[in-house]
């Protein structure tokens, strides 16, 4: 039972189960998903059937009643598929687009969106980023105006994971005229409504996850589409982003560990100049350094997740964990590619794909620079 008190025997057994599931049902087919640029929707239903969707949600809303570390286990183990795209799409489904419904939604919204999402029946996406506003969430321009019994939505969202096929979007839009933090609200928008236009985007990595640009052209939604309190959207989405960053840190740990495992096994087996690659001090020390970097990020992330699960949500600690794990996974995967040499660069091994995929960790869910901005603000440096 490694890492007490974070993990118990139940977590170990769950890890073993997910690892087996990934080996049998994801790894053998993920290259094909990468090729076509999306995962099949059946896999969500399959995972729901196995109780892998929404592991940390309570049973009342269709979850599995596990603790937050069950979600950490799932994120770490899915990363061992050697592809980042599908795990990211799944994280959007269970840890990014849906937590606000559970936290701020009405019983009707939970029944209509959250429960079907956790059954794998509805595909969810999260719409924060706009073509003109990424890091500056407070600058969001997509506008929802009251009209008759409902709202009329006008604007654009981009880089939206699951976008091309999603059934609904958890949308951040401006509902008031005051600029900045005030006047933002959350909406749950059905994406089969007239006026929703989507364009699929191509990208360097994360290819088993499909991504879209949205245009909302006078999209009419009912009064009940408002999620949470009107005008509180910024605070609601800042709450959501904490969980999003933490789960992405956990996924980074899984990817780094997997890349390290591959590189380490390879280095032991690879014979050059009459010895194994680990017989060269440079390589042995590099592996030692990789293990050290992973361990440091792991301890910080687990500690932060432990506090998060107990209700202590520290934006600073979460930013530290997100920043450190995003940089670490890029550094480790790059070194793993180096250890494999040409084999690291060709598609026979998963490393070239991981190398392309993990680049997103430094951009998505808040960039490295934004993490540093948060940390420095929390340290009181920016306003002194």
């Amino acid at each position, binding site marked *: 039972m490694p890492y007490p008190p974070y993990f118990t025997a139940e977590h170990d057994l769950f890890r073993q189960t997910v690892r087996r599931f990934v080996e049998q049902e994801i790894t053998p087919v993920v290259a094909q998903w990468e090729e076509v640029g999306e995962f099949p929707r059946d896999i969500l239903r399959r995972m729901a059937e196995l109780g892998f969707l929404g592991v940390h949600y309570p049973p009342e809303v269709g979850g*599995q009643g*596990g603790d937050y570390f*069950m979600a950490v286990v799932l994120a770490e183990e899915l990363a061992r598929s050697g592809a980042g795209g599908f795990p990211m799409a799944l994280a959007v489904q269970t840890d990014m687009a849906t937590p606000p419904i559970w936290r701020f939604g009405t019983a009707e919204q939970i029944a209509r969106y959250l429960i079907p999402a956790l059954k794998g029946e509805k595909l969810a996406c999260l719409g924060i980023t706009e073509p003109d506003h990424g890091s500056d969430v407070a600058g969001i321009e997509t506008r929802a105006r009251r009209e008759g019994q409902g709202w009329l939505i006008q604007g654009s969202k981009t880089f939206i994971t699951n976008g091309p096929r999603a059934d609904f979007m958890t949308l951040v839009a401006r509902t008031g005229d005051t600029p900045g933090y005030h006047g933002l609200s959350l909406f749950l928008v059905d994406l089969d409504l007239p006026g929703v236009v989507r364009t699929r985007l191509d990208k360097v990595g994360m290819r088993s996850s499909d991504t879209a640009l949205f245009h909302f052209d006078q999209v009419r939604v009912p009064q009940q589409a408002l999620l949470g309190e009107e005008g509180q959207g910024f605070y609601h989405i800042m709450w959501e982003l904490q969980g999003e960053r933490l789960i992405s840190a956990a996924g980074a740990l899984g990817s780094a560990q997997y890349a390290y495992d591959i590189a380490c096994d390879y280095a032991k087996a690879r014979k050059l100049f009459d010895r194994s690659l680990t017989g060269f001090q440079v390589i042995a020390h590099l592996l030692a350094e990789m293990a050290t970097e992973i361990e440091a990020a792991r301890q910080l992330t687990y500690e932060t997740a432990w506090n998060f699960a107990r209700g202590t949500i520290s934006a600073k600690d979460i930013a530290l964990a997100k920043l450190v794990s995003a940089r670490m996974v890029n550094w480790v995967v790059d070194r793993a590619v180096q250890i494999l040499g040409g084999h690291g660069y060709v598609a026979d091994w998963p490393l070239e794909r991981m190398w392309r995929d993990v680049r997103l960790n430094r951009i998505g869910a808040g960039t490295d620079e934004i993490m540093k901005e948060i940390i420095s603000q929390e340290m009181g440096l920016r306003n002194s």
Partner: protein
Amino acid sequence: MKILVMVKQVPDTATRIRINSDGTGIATDGIKWIINPYDEFALEEALRLREKFGGEVVAVALGPSRVEEAIRQSLAMGADRAVHIKTEAELDASLVAEALGAVAREEGFDLILTGKQAVDDDAAQVGARLAVVLGVPQVTVVLKLEVDAESRRVRAERELEGASEMVEAPLPAVLTAQRGLNEPRYPTLPNIMKAKRKPVTVKTLEELGVGTVLQARVMALTLPSERPAGRILEGEPEETVRELVRLLHEEAKVL
């Protein structure tokens, strides 16, 4: 229907085996343990029979504390409760069968299911011996199973070399599972969490009246010898082909 499933914990099939210092067993430090895959087929079949006929599935395992992990997994897959025969002793197949038999007699059963063999020692002894200890019919290497609860009979298809055989037997009986009998389920998260609250009865060999005097003992365990390096024949094709045929005939003895 009450079904007992005999579950053995074995080293993960992907583990690199090393020999221990006195050369009579494997070094167990750092090994990852799993449920014997054939026992998983047995457990899955038991769970499906319970889903069909109702009743109870009890997992029975023998070994030191580490075996608790296999028990927990059996419970997470769906067994109702478990019996752990806790011992540090190395037993031979005859003693294991006696110990499991003693538990089976205490528990009572309609059916006992286990794997056709364990993948660690490949002895394929325990299922058969257990049936003898209990004086009930046995059907080994079962590929397909039909149970008629009314008439209390089983029809089982057995796998033979290049053929299959249909066997009928009355209950109670001991059946051993072959790969292909079913596809074992993954333990779901809610079941993993429930497993911790399911009862596990711990028994000692003394309580079961089973000794530890071995009838068969491992004298020595060695790894297979390393494969010798390949040989490359050089020269004109006519000569090398002739030489290759000669070597295949005289040295490798495959022609």
